[in-house]
């Protein structure tokens, strides 16, 4: 449905992305993961036909975005990073305008707009001015305009950024519901979001694709719980020794934070040994004040992935 081959984009001498290639099957939800400035937005802008690539081609629904721009653009629904709305229009007027721009027939627009209001849960705000809407609802209007013309391909740039947590959950549900009918590309820098919403993950770092894999395999590869932070009251050296003896512990580090004894326990990848760790402390009668799993930050994942690749190369 989407095929990108060797996409490269230079801004002056600066390469925003280099040699980005991937393909998306119909109905697939693909997540672009990467820190800010990694090149996610640039890649999306090339696919939507907003920016021409310096080199490489992108084919959307069988149309090359540069050779047949109008046909390619007609098969895409796009939500840019800053939700672009005309503040002087009501939600309904705005959606009608977007529908007409995409060449939909008036009667079709009318029925579709009502469907989309339901899908994006905008029923209460149909005749509100866009300028009066909160950020979360603007985001929904943005998604509404993207799916209005039932495009086979959806490109959503950071669809859950800057909205409150409850709305984030709802927005994710909306997006998840769109997969199957649409091929969806979405970008995010929130790690759990990818595993919740996407079938496949594509990690971009400094303009290049670092990893392309399914969400399950990626999280298996990176391990679930990898590090546990424990705050324990008791004899320091004995605790450290006891922790190291628990099956599955790789390393125990001690950090004194504000007079408290904190142990950072590095676990073998893919194993959750929190219960064993707690039992080891309780059996000996030491006071376990706190135990929490420390997830990997995006930066650590990049670090792991890049070093992992080097190891396999070596």
């Amino acid at each position, binding site marked *: 449905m989407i095929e990108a081959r060797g996409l490269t984009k230079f801004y002056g001498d600066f390469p925003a992305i280099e040699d980005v290639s991937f393909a998306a099957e119909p109905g697939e939800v693909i997540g672009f993961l990467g820190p800010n400035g990694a090149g996610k937005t640039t890649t999306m802008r090339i696919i939507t036909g907003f920016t021409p690539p310096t080199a490489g081609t992108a084919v959307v629904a069988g149309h090359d975005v540069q050779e047949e721009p109008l046909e390619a653009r007609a098969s895409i629904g*796009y939500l840019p990073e800053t939700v672009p709305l005309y503040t*002087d229009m009501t939600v309904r007027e705005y959606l009608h305008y977007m529908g*007409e721009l995409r060449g939909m027939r008036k009667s079709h627009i009318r029925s579709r707009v009502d469907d989309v209001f339901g899908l994006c849960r905008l029923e209460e705000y149909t005749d509100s001015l866009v300028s009066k809407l909160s950020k979360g609802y603007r985001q929904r209007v943005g998604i509404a305009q993207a799916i209005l013309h039932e495009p086979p391909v959806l490109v959503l740039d950071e669809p859950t950024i800057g909205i409150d947590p409850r709305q984030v959950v709802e927005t994710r549900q909306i997006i998840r519901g769109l997969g199957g009918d649409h091929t969806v590309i979405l970008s995010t820098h929130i790690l759990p979001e990818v595993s919740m919403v996407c079938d496949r993950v594509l990690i971009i770092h400094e303009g290049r694709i670092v990893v392309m894999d399914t969400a399950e395999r990626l999280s298996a590869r990176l391990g679930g719980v990898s590090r546990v932070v424990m705050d324990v009251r008791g004899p320091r050296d004995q605790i450290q020794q006891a922790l190291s003896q628990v099956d599955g512990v790789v390393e125990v580090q001690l950090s004194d934070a504000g007079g408290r004894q904190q142990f950072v326990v590095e676990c073998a990848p893919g194993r959750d040994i929190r219960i064993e760790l707690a039992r080891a402390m309780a059996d000996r009668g030491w006071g376990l004040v706190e135990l929490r799993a420390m997830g990997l930050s995006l930066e650590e994942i990049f670090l792991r992935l890049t070093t992992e690749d080097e190891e396999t190369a070596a």
Partner: protein
Amino acid sequence: MNVRTIRTIWLRELRSYANSPNAWVIAAIFLGLTGLAFALSVTGRYPEATIRGFLFGPIGPMGAFFLTILIAPALTMRLLAEEQKLGTIELLLTAPVRDIEIVLGKYLAALTILTGMYSLTIYFPLQLFFFGSPDLIPLLTGYMVLFLVGAVAVAVGMLGSALTANQIVSAIFSLAILLVLWLFSATAALGDPDHAWTDIVTFLAMSEHIRDMAFGVLDTRDIIYFLSLIVFFLFLTVRAVETRRWR
């Protein structure tokens, strides 16, 4: 080119003009000042039954021509600059719409508003018919050349609006181009009258091409001059919108 898309954009911009106070304020200023110009021109010691006072202004340049040059940038500055500022240009340029359709839709909207203002001045010549016996031809050609000047001014305004996301910068830029076009003839007077450049500069001056028509003489050269300017500036505007994709 898809006429339907142009119409969609045209209607949206017209609605936007109607909803914002700008166009109404500009129209009020235009009608007030041209009304004053007309009143002064027909109430002097030797009143004439013409609209030349309304077009050129009885004192200074404050007639419909010069006012058009002043108000056109104010009318057009929003059209593309705001889209760039709000980011809506990204949706417009990723919709299945050609750049030229965007430019023409917006251009025609601004021109429609301007033409609306002009048509509200029709009661000036109607008064002439009521109180005197004016020649019909200079009235018709006068309004025609006023429309052409307006069409050029709006095209220049479109270019200014396409070049920047800042509406004020856009208006100043367009006004500067229009003033240069308007004042070219004065620049020509500075140079050697026998030099070839003098002729070229004089030919490019807008003020040189409005006089005949304002007095009732139709010359195809003048009409072609105005049409070429309109096409030229709209072409540059489409190009400027295209470069938006590269930035």
